[in-house]
């Protein structure tokens, strides 16, 4: 295996890890506030659809992004109503939301586009283009040179390879994802809002008696969760892909949930966990590399199941215990 292979594998990992990352941070905000969210998947899915649909109609990916976020936030509000206002079972609410999204996306897509639950492919500005950082070899250089980009990068030095392939050339949302990690950390541990958020996930009564509204805090967290899931879904439909197809999130919301546990509800760990799981997905595209490195074929089914297996191992507490925020999944009930 060559250096470039590694770089390319990591490059793929980042692309595939980014939707996980947004969803994982979304879950982090929600769960840190004490609201468990197994509906990440549904919110991503509905955002993917609406972002694709609106990007298609408007021809503008940013419009799509906003629409996706709005749709995801709407589902987040339903989850908030169920788990905060009506103090219902958060897990059941999450299950309902996943089904709601799975059904509604196809229903609406069929009604709008009559293409069996998909949107027409997005072109041009309907998708997020890739950002070409200064000094990187990008498609425009390739165009100018009239040669395939892959060849030009293969011929470059390792630093340039690393820079052009791994650092440069991603969608703007990928960079936004990384910024979100830092922002999440900062908000959580350096701001008043973060302090209260962490407190309400541990002991809502303490927050309440300190004169802060538990309901507002939790809604804030759930809404942030909605926005981030919206980004995750929009990234999938308008950046990673060019349009929506039925069930396109394919369980990524659950992988993000797994990553959240893996990361022990911490933002920086969350980034590493998502990139690791993105890496597993990347490996699925390069069976040749796996074979070259470990000398035998690995079943792709095993590779696909690896994030789940690892999460179970982590949950079992054999490798460091993952302790969720104390009040998570508990509705805040004052009067029985």
């Amino acid at each position, binding site marked *: 295996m060559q250096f470039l292979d590694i770089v*390319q594998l990591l490059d793929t990992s980042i692309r595939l890890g980014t939707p996980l990352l947004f969803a994982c941070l979304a879950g982090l905000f929600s769960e840190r506030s004490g609201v468990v969210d197994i509906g990440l998947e549904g919110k991503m899915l509905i955002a993917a659809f609406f972002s694709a649909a609106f990007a298609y109609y408007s021809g503008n990916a940013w419009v799509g992004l906003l629409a996706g976020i709005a749709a995801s936030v709407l589902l987040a509000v339903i989850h908030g109503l169920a788990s905060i206002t009506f103090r219902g079972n958060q897990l059941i609410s999450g299950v309902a939301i996943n089904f709601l999204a799975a059904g509604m996306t196809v229903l609406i897509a069929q009604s709008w586009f009559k293409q069996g639950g*998909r949107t027409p492919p997005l072109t041009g500005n309907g998708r997020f283009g890739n950002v070409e950082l200064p000094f990187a070899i990008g498609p425009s250089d*390739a165009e100018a040179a009239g040669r395939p980009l892959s*060849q030009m990068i293969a011929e470059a030095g390792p630093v340039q390879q690393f820079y052009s392939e791994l650092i440069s050339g991603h969608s703007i949302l990928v960079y936004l994802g990384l910024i979100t990690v830092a922002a999440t950390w900062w908000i959580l541990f350096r701001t008043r809002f973060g302090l209260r958020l962490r407190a309400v996930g541990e002991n809502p009564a303490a927050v309440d008696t300190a004169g802060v509204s538990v309901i507002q805090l939790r809604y804030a967290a759930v809404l942030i969760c909605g926005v981030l899931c919206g980004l995750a879904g929009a990234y999938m439909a308008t950046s990673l892909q060019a349009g929506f*197809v039925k069930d*396109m999130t394919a369980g990524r919301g659950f992988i993000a949930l797994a990553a959240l546990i893996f990361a022990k509800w911490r933002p920086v760990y969350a980034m590493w966990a998502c990139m690791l799981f993105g890496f597993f997905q*990347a490996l699925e*595209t390069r*069976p040749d590399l796996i074979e070259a490195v470990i000398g035998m074929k690995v079943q792709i*089914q095993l590779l696909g199941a690896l994030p789940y297996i690892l999460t179970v191992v982590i949950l079992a507490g054999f490798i460091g215990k993952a302790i969720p925020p104390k009040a998570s999944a508990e509705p805040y009930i004052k009067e029985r």
Partner: protein
Amino acid sequence: EPALIFDLGGKFDKSFNEAAFGGATRWAEETGGTFREIELQSEAQREQALRRFAEAGANPIVMTGFAFGNVLSEVAPDYPDTKFAIIDMVVDSPNVRSVVFNEHEGSYLVGMMAAQASKSGTVGFIGGMDIPLIRKFACGYVQGVKAVNPDATVIQNMTGTTPAAWNDPVKGSELTKAQIAQGADVVYAAAGGTGVGVLQTAADENILSIGVDSNQNYLHSGKVLTSMMKRVDNAVYEAMKAGEGLETGFNVMGVANGGIDYAMDEHNASLVSDDMKASVDMAKGKIASGELAVHDYMSDNTCPVE
């Protein structure tokens, strides 16, 4: 009234099912008739759809995809007065017409074109679900490539092992990127809806792609080298046109009878040189005449070349 049942990939997969839909639409336009259709959403619906259409008097009932094989063999005997046509699978029943295609022949032709268009000597193949049918595509393709350039490398990937593999453009896209990274500059997608992602990425990354089943050249004009056309549309069209008098039995569509071809149009005219076209047409003629035999993977589940 004829009926058409689409397999799980969906009517608008830009490929296999869409071709069938195209054939049915052509029939409807030409004859002014109407047809019933349904897109399957789940496995359990297969049988139900067949039976309900049969009971409702639809005739003939056309279905696309090998996955109907099992179910049809059970249902067909229950409705002896109804004619069925199944594409891509052989069902042995007196009221069933089984249409199969010599995909290996068409794949051979586009393989030849890929090898001639490739500058790097490395070309790619991306299959949908890992089943013998798709290996048949791959095997024909590799034979075509090697016929032109025995030293060429063909990178092969399958998207998955379940029907979901027909509809996973994200994975298709990533597989394409991986193949490009390994030097491929022409990729052939035989992957249903997944191929949309393959063609998209190939266009994004400025390499050539080859479409499948329908003519997909228009999807990315000037970026799609050609398409391996499996005239599912013709098969459906003919079945519907025959109506209740549909001739049953085994029906092989190949290069010889126009069931298999490669696509040429204004979108790829600039990509295919006259030399290329000449050599491919020569092979086509030889295959049609039987002079050139392309190995069919499904005949013995092996492929002589890698």
